[in-house]
């Protein structure tokens, strides 16, 4: 079991070292600062597009939402419009709650069996996975948006405002961003859960640990650059602006730590489309959530519906005519 997380951990370490030494030792700034980021972005968008079109090309033969509340039926029975939507608006609301608030995960319970005289199975509300997941995703989103300041000049006001909110704790200098701390804490929680929760550990693959370590590596390298080693921020902005304006330059004096950080981010981008991280796009296409439960009211068309051999009434009556007549059941043909 150990190697399921030790190998991905070692791989992430190694990847970081490759970039760090590649820059500090072999002077491969151009490779790690220009070629790899471009390639990663191409892989990300290409792969993302490829995967989503592959999904979209698969048919949706049946309308099979999972209904999680009262259906629309008689006018005096109160429908649960969101968890069992029968209109596009309802579906939209359901999807918004699912995507932005992880509504299904919010329902999570934990079962326990108490072998005693009562032998009770009990279920308690289990909120931690939801909290951890929500904290992780929103912190990550904030971090990503903050990083847009490296790709836009002048930095728009709304990014500055977000930075202001993120740094509202006003601790230390440079001011501490909460998002970084929350991100690291959340990702460590998710990792701990994977390792120490018996069931989750059993189902985890190396492919589940790898992105976690990658993100941990990215977060730690990012935090050290900002708060501890104090990299050349002006140089970095020159480099990132060069990338985004397709005039790539490699300014002097940027530390290897930065290239390690960028390399891990690039790996994450390139790895994204071929991994489970695609749940980001998949959730939009999940037929059990994104369809209305109105199948009895509005006919759904199956694009590959084909004719099948059935046992017709005529064949049936041929099999049983005499017995039917004898039993006094009506028949279509009398003999």
């Amino acid at each position: 079991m150990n190697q399921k997380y030790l190998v991905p951990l070692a791989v992430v370490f190694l990847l970081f070292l490759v970039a760090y030494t590649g820059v500090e030792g072999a002077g491969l700034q151009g490779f790690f600062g220009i070629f790899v980021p471009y390639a990663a972005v191409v892989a990300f968008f290409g792969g993302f597009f490829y995967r989503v079109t592959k999904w979209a090309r698969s048919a949706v033969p049946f309308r099979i939402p999972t209904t999680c509340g009262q259906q629309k039926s008689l006018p005096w029975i109160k429908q649960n419009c969101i968890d069992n939507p029968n209109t596009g608006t309802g579906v939209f609301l359901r999807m918004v709650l699912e995507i932005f608030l992880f509504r299904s995960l919010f329902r999570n319970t934990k079962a326990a069996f108490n072998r005693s005289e009562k032998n009770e199975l009990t279920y308690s509300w289990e909120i931690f996975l939801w909290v951890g997941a929500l904290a992780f995703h929103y912190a990550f989103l904030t971090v990503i948006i903050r990083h847009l300041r490296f790709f836009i000049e002048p930095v728009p006001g709304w990014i500055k405002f977000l930075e202001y909110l993120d740094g509202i704790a006003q601790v230390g200098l440079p001011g501490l961003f909460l998002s970084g701390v929350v991100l690291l804490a959340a990702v460590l929680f998710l990792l701990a859960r994977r390792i120490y929760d018996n069931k989750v550990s059993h189902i985890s693959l190396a492919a589940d640990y790898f992105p976690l370590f990658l993100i941990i590596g990215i977060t730690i390298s990012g935090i050290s650059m900002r708060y501890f080693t104090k990299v050349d921020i002006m140089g970095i902005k020159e480099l990132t602006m060069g990338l985004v304006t397709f005039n790539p330059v490699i300014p002097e004096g940027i530390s290897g730590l930065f290239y390690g950080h960028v390399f891990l981010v690039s790996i994450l981008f390139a790895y994204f489309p071929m991994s489970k991280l695609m749940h980001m796009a998949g959730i939009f296409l999940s037929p059990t959530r994104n369809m209305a439960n109105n199948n009895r009211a509005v006919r759904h068309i199956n694009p590959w519906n084909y004719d099948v051999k059935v046992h017709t009434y005529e064949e049936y009556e041929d099999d049983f005519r005499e017995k039917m007549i004898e039993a006094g059941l009506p028949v279509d043909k009398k003999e």
Partner: protein
Amino acid sequence: MSDEIKPDALLDKIDYKTPTTDWMSTSSVQIRPGMYCYSANPKSLDTLDMPYSRKWNPLEEDWKLPENWQEIIHEGLKTRLERFRTFRVFMDICVRCGACADKCHFFLGTGDPKNMPVLRAELLRSVYRNDFSTAAKILNKFPGGKSFSGSRSMTLDVLKEWWYYFFQCTECRRCSVFCPYGIDTAEITIMGRELLNLLGLNIDWIATPVSNCFQTGNHLGIQPHAFKDMIDFFTEDIEEITGVDVDPQINKKGADILFITPSGDVFADPGTYTCQGYMILFKYLKDKYDLNVTWSTYASEGGNFGFFTSHETMKRLNAKMYAEAKRLGVKWILGGECGHMWRVINQYMDTMNGPADFLEEPVNPITGTKFENAKSTKMVHICEFTADLIKHDKLEMDISRNDNLVLTYHDSCNPARGMGLLDEPRYIINKTCKEFYEMPENTIREKTFCCGSGAGLNAGENIELRMAGGLPRANAVKYVHEKFGVNSLCCICAIDRAAFPALMEYWVPEVDVIGIHELVGNALILEGEHKRETDLRMEPLPGVEQTKEEDDE
């Protein structure tokens, strides 16, 4: 039944701690008696021209597979990935967060980690990654790559594992409620079973009902004259109890409504009492409102075990409903109390076998209510229909006849999570009996627990699996039994009515099983009926014995 595992022994086995070994490496599956169903009778596969019919035994090493079976599976997977977006997306996006792990009744009852929905799906996903994921294919070239990418080649051991665990899932969709992406294990199991059927690997408890249904019109293989015999028999019983001949109509052309219910209601106690409830209701509506409802012997099955075989088989069996409605020239179809039957009707029928343009948009002629939610499929659930009648005060009832019942209500999986029929049955219960208590919140409505015997697993030989899988449901019944003195478990599913008596006897022996329309049948006051002394089970009505004694004095 003597070698059956005792409840205490079964409870002793429950341990949610997972083994420390890798699930992928424990690939030699121990197929254990009590946990699996017998293989399909080859004759039953032949009825529907299903491939590779043969005698084979799951316990034997050799499953007598066709030589190119791996190729068949690979091609089958490929076709299904193209045909079902659900399948392709669900293969790709699971993050293994574990939210589903302890939501499955089979996991809760057995503690077997491969009954965690996520692992059940991973059994298939591991092969999918091996065969269809480019990233995994590249990784697999390195030593240890397979373990890293989570891929497995399609070996005989893997196939046996599929068979064992895809027939330990009742397609109840409870896990899908909790999954943040809505991944539906029912969908995975459906695909898994379709693939197994490509190799002739069905179980007999599904294959034979399917064959029967195709040939004779119902799962139990009741021929038309025998079907009529059963109905006649109920008619006599009802006459004895009420003094009224309910005179049911069968295969009647020009009736207003065609009624279809699972054949289990016609054949097996306690479903038979629910069936008598329908018959009393139809007689009442005919006398009072001149509404003609007919039964059919050709479409004498509401359930559809084809759904547990393949999409194609489901369509072949379901076709009878519309065909018969058309032949008889009815206005619309009314459907009885059943679970998976309603998933098929609500989410598949119109798409597969519609449009039903020869039927009318369903309207209740007695109340004038338009069933807007069924205007395309043209099939109405009897609970929607009866609730509407009661709401409009169209049924005269004496609900004191149900006074000896202390009820709780089990939401059947499919009407709950594939439809959302939750409050209609509760409304009828509240209007037909006085004492009703809900089971704990996490075990009802969309979070309801399966009976443990659905999706074709209600056989005798897998009794340990059924009792273990039914434990979470039974445990909740036991809770209300002890707390409120509940003595009857009400349900709207024929499989429930077949499965629960054994489950209750095993875990909560003092609780009976009852259908909603049995409550209605007991309470309805028919025109010209004599004073009833017993309920539909021929047991004395509340207060009757006492009155008799008083009379004697």
